[in-house]
C-alpha cells in the first residue's frame, strides 16, 4: 500500500526539503478597535492536567475569560505525551471552540490537528511550551528563553561560589521550553567567568514527581561531589529539594531552578533551597487568555507589531514570529517568599 512514487532512490529527507515549509501565516486583516466578543469559548490544553504549575496558569486564564465575558475550561491528558494532546485537540475542534490554548508536549506531533483547527477559524495560541511556528497563531512566552537560561546559570554560580560540578534535572527530553533554556544555559556556561562550573549531566524526570525524585537520587549517587542541581521545571525542583532536604547532601548541594513559592516555601525555610526563580504563572495564563480572545475577536491577526489591551497587564505588542513576552522572572528568597502565594 505504501508503494511510493519517486524514481531514483525514493523519497528522502533532502528531496522533500525543497518543498515549501510555510512561514507564520497571519491571515486576514485585524481591526484594533473591534470589541472583544462576548461568550467566546476558550479551552486550555496544558501539557498534563494535575500539574500544579499548569493548573495555576490555566485557572488564571479561565478567571481572565470571565472579565471579558468568555467561557474558558481546562482539558488535557494525565500523561505529558504528545499523542494524547492530539486526541484532545481533535475533540476541541469537534466542540467548535473559538480558541485553543496549548502548552505543547512536542512541537511537531500536535502540528497537524492545530493546523486543522486554524483552518476552521479557531484561534490557536501556544503558551509555556511552543508548538512549531506555522502551527499556531501566537506564542505567549513566559519570559525570554534566553533570559531564563542565562539567569539560571548566574544564580547557580552565585550559590556555589563559581566552582564545582553541576547537573540539570529537566522535564521530558523533548519539552520545547526546557530544551531551549538548557541550550542557553550551556551557552552561558561557555563564558570565561563560569569556567569553574562543570555541567556533568542533564537528567530527565519527565515531570513526574517519583521519577524526578529517583533521578535526583541517581545524580547524587553518580556524582557525590555535585555542588548544584538546576531543575528548570516546577515538578523537578520540588522533587529534587524533597530528596536533598532528607538526605546527607542537605546544605552541601544547592537546588535551584524554576519553582512555585507555595511548593518551595518549606525548602526555603529549612535551608535546602536559597534562591530560585519564576515568572508569575497567573499573569502568563491571564495574558494568554487575553491574547486568544483578541485573536478570536479579530482585534489582532498575529502579525508582528500589532498591539492589544491585556486587561490589568496593559497594552502588549506582538513580537517576531508571533511571540508575546510576559516579562523578566522574579527571584525568590527567604526574604520575599512570603509575599507570594501561588
Amino acid at each position, binding site marked *: 500500500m505504501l508503494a511510493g512514487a519517486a524514481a531514483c532512490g525514493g*523519497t528522502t*529527507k533532502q528531496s*522533500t526539503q525543497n518543498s515549501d515549509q510555510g512561514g507564520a501565516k497571519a491571515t486576514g486583516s485585524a481591526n484594533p478597535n473591534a470589541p472583544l466578543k462576548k461568550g467566546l469559548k476558550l479551552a486550555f490544553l496544558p501539557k498534563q492536567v494535575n500539574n500544579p504549575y499548569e493548573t495555576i496558569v490555566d485557572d488564571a486564564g479561565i478567571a481572565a475569560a470571565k472579565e471579558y465575558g468568555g467561557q474558558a475550561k481546562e482539558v488535557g491528558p494525565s500523561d505529558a505525551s504528545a499523542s494524547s494532546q492530539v486526541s484532545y485537540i*481533535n*475533540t476541541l475542534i469537534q466542540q467548535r471552540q473559538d480558541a485553543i490554548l496549548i502548552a505543547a508536549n512536542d512541537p*511537531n506531533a500536535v*502540528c*497537524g490537528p492545530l493546523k486543522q483547527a486554524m483552518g476552521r477559524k479557531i484561534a490557536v495560541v501556544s503558551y509555556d511550551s511552543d508548538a512549531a511556528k506555522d502551527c499556531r497563531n501566537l506564542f505567549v512566552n513566559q519570559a525570554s528563553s534566553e533570559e531564563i537560561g542565562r539567569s539560571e546559570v548566574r544564580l547557580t554560580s552565585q550559590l556555589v561560589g563559581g566552582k564545582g560540578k553541576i547537573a540539570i534535572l529537566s522535564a521530558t527530553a523533548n519539552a520545547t521550553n526546557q530544551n531551549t533554556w538548557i541550550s542557553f544555559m550551556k551557552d552561558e556556561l561557555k563564558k570565561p567567568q563560569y569556567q569553574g562550573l562543570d555541567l556533568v549531566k542533564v537528567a530527565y524526570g519527565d515531570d513526574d514527581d517519583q521519577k524526578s525524585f529517583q533521578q535526583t537520587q541517581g545524580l547524587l549517587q553518580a556524582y557525590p561531589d555535585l555542588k548544584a542541581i538546576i531543575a528548570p521545571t516546577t515538578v523537578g525542583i520540588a522533587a529534587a529539594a524533597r530528596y536533598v532536604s532528607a538526605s546527607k547532601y542537605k546544605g552541601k548541594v544547592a537546588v535551584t531552578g524554576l519553582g512555585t513559592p507555595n511548593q518551595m516555601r518549606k525548602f526555603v525555610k529549612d535551608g535546602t533551597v536559597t534562591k530560585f526563580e519564576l515568572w508569575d504563572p497567573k499573569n502568563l495564563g491571564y495574558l494568554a487568555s487575553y491574547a486568544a480572545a483578541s485573536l478570536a475577536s479579530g482585534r489582532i491577526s498575529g502579525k508582528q507589531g500589532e498591539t492589544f489591551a491585556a486587561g490589568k497587564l496593559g497594552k502588549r505588542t506582538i513580537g517576531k514570529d508571533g511571540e508575546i513576552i510576559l516579562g523578566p522572572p522574579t527571584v525568590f528568597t527567604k526574604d520575599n517568599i512570603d509575599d507570594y502565594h501561588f
Partner: protein
Amino acid sequence: MAAETPVRERSRTEPPVRRAGALVRWDVIVAVLLVAVFAVGAGTTGDFATADNLSFALDDLTEIALIALPMTLLVVAAEVDLSVASVLGLSSALLGALWDAGWAIETIIPLVVLVGAGCGLVNGVLVTRLGLPSLAVTIGTMTLYRGLAYVLLGTNAVSEFPQAYADLATGAFPGTPFPYPFVLFVLLAVVTAVVLHATGVGRALFAMGANQEAAFFAGIRVKRIKLLLFVLAGVVSAFAGVVYTLRYGSARADNAYGLELAVIAAVLVGGVDFNGGKGTLGGVVAGVLIIGLLRNLLMLRDVSTEIQSMVTGLLLIVSVLTPRSRHVQTSLRRRRAGARAGGRGRVRRHDEAVDAEQ
C-alpha cells in the same frame, strides 16, 4: 473423568435460570454495549455521531486496533506479548534515525518491519525454544526494545516526513470517513477472523490455549505456531510504529509508551480468556471500538482524564468477571459450604474440579 463430577454437581445445584444466562456469550454482550454507547453518544452529544468525529475516534485507535489482531491470536494460544509498544517505539526511532540520515522512506519502511519481525523472533525463540513464560520474557524485551529505541534516537524527535506518506497515515479513504489505516485494519481483521474461526490453524490455536500438551499429542506443531505468532506480533507492531510516526509526524523513542496495556485491555474486554482457549475476533473488534468510542464520548463531554481511565478499568474488570461469574459464584458458595463443613481439603478438591471444567 474429572470432568464428569462437576457437570453432575452443577446440574444438581444450580437453578436453570443461571445456566440459561451462561448461554449469552460475553462477546455478544460487548457488541450490544458498543451499540448502546453509540446510541447514547448520538442521542446526548451533538458532535459525537458526525463523520468528522468518528473519523478522529477511529484514527486515535489505529495502533491499538492493528496490534490487537496478533495479540488476540497470542492470548487465545495462552501466550502474551508485552513488548509490542516497545517494538512500536523502536520502529519509530529507527525510522526517524534513518530518515534523518537521508535514507529513502521506501527503503526504511520494509527494513523497519523486518526489524520488527526480528524482535518478534527473539521473543518467540525465548518462549518456545527455551520454554520461558511469555509474560516474563516480554517484560524483559519490553524494556530491552525501548532501551534500543533510546540508543538509536536518544531523546531527539525527528519530524518533517514526506507529505504523501503522512497523508496515507492520516487521510480518509475517498468517499468515507474511514482513515486509510483503519481500512487496512478492517481487511486484516477479516483475514484474522477467517484464520482464527474457519481454518485448522485457528482450531489449533484454541486447542493449544486450552491444553498445550493435549494439542501437542494431537499432532499440532505447538512451538512452531507460537513462534510464528510472536513474529507476526513483531511485524504488526513495527508497521504500527510506521503508521504512528507518520500520523503524528514525530519519530521518538518514547512513542506509544504504555500502549501494550491498552491493547491487552481491548483484547480482554473483547472477551478473550487470558488463560487461553476461548475468545472470538468479533468480540475483540467490538472491544477495541467500545474502548475508543467510550473515550471519545467522555472527552467530548469534558469528563476528566482520571474518570476516563476509571471507566475503562471498570469495563475491563467487568469483562473479565462476567464470563466467569458462574465460576466465581460457584466457588464462593462451595467455599462457604466447605467452611461450614469444616473441610478445607474438600473445598480445594471442588475448586480444582471446577477449574478443570472451565
